[in-house]
Structure formats: structure tokens, C-alpha cells
């Protein structure tokens, strides 16, 4: 069990929990809370997707079905039956988990649905969910559901704060679960399935049980996170909920970050969302989608393992570079708002990680010629 990354993550979570309190005291823009909420949301979505699809190597395109179930459950329970949000959330998670369980139970029994056919089937479930919601008046039927006047506990200063903590909590939960799975027998089994399912079965891994478990957890977490998101969205309609966008971004973030480690989706969510937020706010939403699409292509072509591995190897130089970038922006270019500063810093770090190993080693060696035993570049002699 690798303690260091886990401790770092928990420490970060504690820091993040303090931010709203800082906001109350210092009075900086509430927008930071909104931005961070979205990061938490995507971390939860990408992580929940990754702990099955990434670990086991069976790419589900149906994430949006779980999200949508969570969203609509909360919307219906709150607006039509007067439930409170804390009461509705477990139900949302449970229903999404049930959907995952059902689909998984049917599909995993069939050996014939491996690989891309599995992806296709989950794609169908995702798209179909939208049609069902649209055609069923009891669910949506076309009029959508507006979440008006949802209450929040007096402990929090605003709904924004409430959502922030709910989102943070869910993200921490998702990451903890993913990490726990990764280092457990379940995780080892899933990785074995990733490498070769038939061999794994031969070795005695209970593939059906493991896949079903992980897939159900995927559904549960995605539903929970989706339920919270319903309140953020304010108005829930099939068009904005059941889009391919949600499935695609969850996949992209995990693949970019690295699918074999719980840290991957976090990195991916941070990079993709900050970039898309800044570009969208500057009015470049089409360009942002082009960049997103290009990123997916580039990652699949050149870095199928994602950036996590490289981050670990190049950690210190990357952190130094990030600090320098942030400092330069802070000093040289006023006024620059915090989010832009963050995005550029992240982007520069990304560039550093995208350098192919040969180039990086060269640059690193040139930077530190004093050290005779280079880390991995010793063979330059």
C-alpha cells in the first residue's frame, strides 16, 4: 500500500474543506467554490468510471445512464414528493447501483459480449435511458423538472457552500473506494482481467463476481454524484442530462490521467475541467471541444498509459516548474485571476509531462550535469 500519495490526497482534502471558511473570512469570489465543486463532480464521475472500466479494461460508454438515474431520482423525489436532499441521495445512489447491477448481471453472463461489443451495449443503455426518460411522462415526458427552492441546512452560508461540501465528500468517498479496491484482492483480480480474462479465469479469479461488484460500485457512486448535481443544474431536462458528453468526458479524464491508478482520474479531471472552464468563459466553446477531441486522439496514440506514470517519475521537476510558473504569473502579469493562473500552471505542467522520455531525459541531464549517476540517463555515455 502506497501511503505517500494517499496521505497527500487526504491532506489536500482537508485543505479543500477549509476553503469555504476562508471565503467567508476573506471574502474572495464565490466563483472559486463553484469551480471547485465542478472539479469534485468530475473527479467523482471519472473515478467511479475508472474503478471498473479502467481497472478491468472493459470500457463502458454508459456512464451517463447512471448519472441520469441519480439526477432524475433526486429531482423527482424532491420536487414531486417533497423529500429532502439528504434523504433522496441514498435512493439515487441505490437506484443507479441497481441499474448497474442488472445490466452487469445480464451482460457479464455472456462471454460473447467482450471488448468493443460491451462498449457498444453500454452505449445503447446510455442512449436508451434518455429515450425512456423522454417518453415516460412520470419521469420527464418532455417538460423537464425545475428544482426550485431546495433548502439547505442553516450550518452553511449558502446553497453554493452546501453543494461544495457535498461534492467534496462524494469525491473523497469515490477516491477512497477506488484506492481501497486498487490495493485489494478485488483490484488485483480486475487488473488480471484487464490483461487477459481467460487466463484470469484459469487462475481461479472469480471474474463474474468481481466485474459485477466493481460495475455496481461504479453505478452507486455515479448515481450519488449525479443526485447532487441535479441541484446544481437547477433545471433537469433530457437534453442536458442524457448527453454523450458526460460519458465521453469521464472516459477522457481517466484515460488522460491514467487508468491503472486511482490518482489518474483526479489528474485528468483537473486538467480537462480547468481548461474547458477557462476557454468557455472566454467564449471559445467550440475551440474547447476541438482541443478536447484532439487530446483524446493524442493520448490514445502516444500515451495510452496516461500522465500519472510520468508524473511520478518527473514529480520534483514538475512541481518546481509549476511553482516557478505560478510565481512568474503572479509577479509579472497583474491582474490575473486565480483560476487563469491555475489553468496555465496546470497546462505548463502538462506540457512537461507530455515530453517524450528521450527528450525529457536529455533536458533533465542538461539541467543537472553535476550528478554523475543520472536517473535513467546513465547510458548517455
Amino acid at each position, binding site marked *: 500500500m502506497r501511503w505517500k500519495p494517499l496521505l497527500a490526497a487526504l491532506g489536500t482534502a482537508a485543505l479543500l474543506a477549509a476553503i469555504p471558511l476562508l471565503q467567508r473570512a476573506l471574502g474572495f*469570489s*464565490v*466563483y472559486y467554490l*463553484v469551480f471547485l465543486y*465542478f472539479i469534485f463532480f468530475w473527479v467523482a464521475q471519472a473515478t467511479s468510471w475508472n474503478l471498473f472500466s479502467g481497472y478491468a479494461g472493459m470500457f463502458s460508454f454508459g456512464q451517463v445512464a447512471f448519472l441520469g438515474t441519480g439526477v432524475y431520482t433526486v429531482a423527482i423525489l424532491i420536487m414531486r414528493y417533497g423529500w429532502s436532499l439528504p434523504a433522496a441521495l441514498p435512493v439515487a445512489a441505490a437506484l443507479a447501483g441497481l441499474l448497474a447491477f442488472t445490466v452487469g448481471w445480464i451482460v457479464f453472463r455472456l462471454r460473447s459480449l467482450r471488448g468493443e461489443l460491451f462498449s457498444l451495449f453500454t452505449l445503447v443503455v446510455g442512449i436508451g435511458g434518455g429515450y425512456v426518460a*423522454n417518453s415516460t411522462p412520470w419521469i420527464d*415526458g*418532455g*417538460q*423537464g423538472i*425545475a*428544482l*426550485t*427552492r431546495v433548502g439547505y441546512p442553516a450550518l452553511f452560508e*449558502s*446553497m*453554493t457552500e452546501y453543494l461544495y461540501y457535498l461534492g467534496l465528500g462524494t469525491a473523497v468517498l469515490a477516491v477512497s473506494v477506488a484506492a481501497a479496491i486498487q490495493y485489494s484482492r478485488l483490484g488485483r483480480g480486475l487488473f488480471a482481467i484487464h490483461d487477459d480474462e481467460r487466463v484470469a479465469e484459469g487462475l481461479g479469479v472469480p471474474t463474474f463476481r468481481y466485474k459485477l461488484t466493481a460495475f455496481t460500485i461504479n453505478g452507486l457512486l455515479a448515481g450519488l454524484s449525479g443526485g447532487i448535481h441535479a441541484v*446544481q*443544474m*437547477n*433545471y*433537469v*431536462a433530457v*437534453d*442536458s442530462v442524457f448527453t454523450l458528453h458526460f460519458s465521453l468526458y469521464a472516459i477522457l479524464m481517466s484515460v488522460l490521467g491514467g487508468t491503472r491508478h486511482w490518482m489518474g482520474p483526479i489528474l485528468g479531471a483537473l486538467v480537462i475541467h480547468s481548461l474547458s472552464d*477557462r*476557454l*468557455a*468563459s*472566454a*467564449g*471559445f*466553446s*467550440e475551440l474547447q471541444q476541438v482541443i478536447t477531441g484532439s487530446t483524446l486522439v493524442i493520448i490514445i496514440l502516444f500515451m495510452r498509459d496516461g500522465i500519472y506514470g510520468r508524473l511520478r517519475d518527473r514529480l520534483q521537476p514538475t512541481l518546481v516548474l509549476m511553482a516557478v510558473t505560478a510565481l512568474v504569473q503572479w509577479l509579472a*502579469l497583474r*491582474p*490575473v*485571476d486565480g*483560476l*487563469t493562473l491555475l*489553468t*496555465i500552471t496546470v*497546462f*505548463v505542467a502538462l*506540457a512537461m509531462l*507530455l*515530453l*517524450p522520455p*528521450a*527528450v525529457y531525459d*536529455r*533536458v533533465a541531464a542538461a539541467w543537472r550535469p553535476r550528478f554523475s549517476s543520472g536517473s535513467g540517463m546513465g547510458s548517455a555515455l
Partner: protein
Amino acid sequence: MKRGNLIHLLIIVVVTLGVTLGIWGAALAQDVTPIRVGSTLALTGGLAATGKIHQIAGTEFVKLLNERGGLLGRPVEWVLLDDEGTGDKAAAGYERLITAERVDLLVGPYGTAATVAAQGVADRYGYVLPFPAQSLTYNNVYDRQFMAWPTGLDTHISTPGIIFDAYLNTPNPPKTVAFVVSRFPSAQFLVYGRDGVGGAIRVAEEKGLQVVLDISYDLGTTDFTAIALRIRQADPDLLFVGALGEDGPNLMAAMAQLGYRPRGQFYLWPSPGPMLEAGPLAEGATSITAFENNAAYLRNHGAPEFVERFVRAAKEAGLPYTDPEIQAASQWAAWQILVAGVEGCQCLDQAGIAEYIQNNTIPTVFGDLTFDRNQNNVPPDIQAVKQIQNGQWVVVYPDRWAVEGSQLIYPSR
């Protein structure tokens, strides 16, 4: 270093620099101007054609306002974001406008989803939100929102009433009606009502019409062949289409392919331009409106200059259809409401502005509007029916808004 890797490195450096400078540039290009009004609009996406009309109307209003000395003596800047016509992007957009851009005032977006989402955000932060239109009137529960388009709270009862009365007032009125409805939320609400009450179908039955068909289709449908077949089979006296955007021309073409032409056809909220472009197929088609370029409406406050400036701007923008109509007018009226509120209370305080609007009659291009909280701040229904006659939209009913001497022509063949 190998040449390939060098090029690789160069590309990465150049791209990084480029993106970095781009993002910096975007972040820095933010002016510091006195009064900032924030909105989102469907600038891209499926509703963009109408979104653009709203953008032009709003831009012209602000220009005119600034020419006349601005608001409270200060120039006005419109901060506009793209919500792509969806609720979640509108919610995110308004949240950004309020918290990151820190705008002073808000004007609502276009489209039901975006507007309802925006209301939730405005509610969260206490901002006044005047907006063009949102026909799920039962959702307008926030007390500081104000709707410009005068449909009345019970629009699912009053509006079909106006439409059917127009047809029943003709010498040879229709007896049967078919309903073909888009799955757009407000269209569904208008035709099917809510909780078993209202809706065009029930209103039609109450007025003695027989319903011979009732089907819904997905937003964005472009192939109406199957629906046209069913309409032809039902052969109604009046075809009532809960249409948006391009649905009208698409359906008319599908019916034409089958050699069928309805005796009467009504289209709920079509894009006005494409309807005219459909030529002879659309002759006799009717729709609902609250503003047209005729003498009756030009008497309203601000109407003449609205018409003049919008037409000019629309021509410059190369819009295919430059006549100002309900969509543009609703955006203009929303601004009129905001300005009246600010000038009335001589302040930028949200509570003060809301109170002024609530307690006073606001003159707009639609006429004088009043806001009653018991009616969810939706002004009473004063809409009219317009018809395509000789390739032009003509208001035909009721007399208050109709063109002198015009009549609803029914049946069409």
C-alpha cells in the same frame, strides 16, 4: 538530440506558449466599465437562430440606451455568455456572471430550460431577473423574476382559447382538430396542460371541437413522413402543431410529398423566416404573437425606435428575415423592464428594483405590463393570432391588435 525529438520538443514549446498567451490574453481582455449587465443566450446550438435575434435586439437596446446617456448617468456594458440553449450551461453561466464577473444587473436568457435554470441561480443570490419568456409559467416561483412576454399565468388555458376563438369566429369554422406536438417542455405544457387541467386539447374539447389525432415528436426531428401519413389519414379540419424552429417547414414539406394540404394549420412558435421561405406551402398558416410591425403595436412605448433599430441591425447582420417580431420584442421588453426598475428606484439595489417593478405599471413595446405575485409575475395574456397571407405575416385577431380590415382566412383551400 535526435532531429525528430527536437521537432517534437519545439512543437510542444510553441503550442504551450501559444495556448498560454491565448488564455492570458482572454483573461486580460476584461474592461472595467461602470454598470455591467450580465446574460447568457443560445449563441450556438439548436436554438441559436432565435438566440441571434435576441442578441441583436439586446445589443441595439444597449446602444440606444448609451446614446441617451446610459443608466443613472453611467454607460452600460452587456456581458454576454453562450449557454448553447441548455439549462446546465445557463446555470453555470449565470453563476459565473454573478460570482466571477460580478455584474451589477441581470437580464434573462432565451428558452425555457435556460430561463428556469437561470431563475434558480438568481434566486440563490437574490438578483432581479427580467427575462423574455418562459412558458412553463408554474415554474416562475422566484419573486424577483419578471416575464416580459405577456402570456398570462394560465397560458395553457388562455392562449389556446385565443387561437380557437379566432378560428371559430369564421363563417365556416372547423369541427375537428389534430394535435402534433414537439417534446419541447413548454409546447407539451401548452397542449397537454398540467395535473389534469388545461392544455389546448381540453380547451378544444370544451369549445366543441373533436380531437382526431394527438401525437408527440422529438425536438430536432426533421423527418415528418410518418407523422404526415397519420395526419393525412385523420384529415382534420384544423391541424394544430406545437412547433418550434424549423418544424413547420419540415412538416409542410412532408405533407406535400404525400400530396396532402390541410384546410387549416396553426404553428405554435416557429422561426418566422423559414415559414415564409416555404412559399405557397405555408400560405394560410397561422401562429401566435404579441408583437408585429403594424400600427396597433407601434403605438406602444418604445416600439417605433425598436422597429427601426432592429431592422437596420438585422439587415447588417445578414439575417434572412429582418422584420422585428415577438422574439426580438420580448428581449427589448425585458430590458425595458430592467431599466424602468433601476430608474424608478434610482438605485442598483436588487430589493429596491424588484419593489419598483412589482408595484408599478411598466410601459413596454408589448403595451403596459403589470406584475402580480399571485400570477407568478407573468403579465396578463394579450396575445394575438397572425396568418401568412400573400407571403406576409398579418395579424388577424383580435381586433385590438389586428391590421385594419384583415380577416382570418379559413379554410385555405
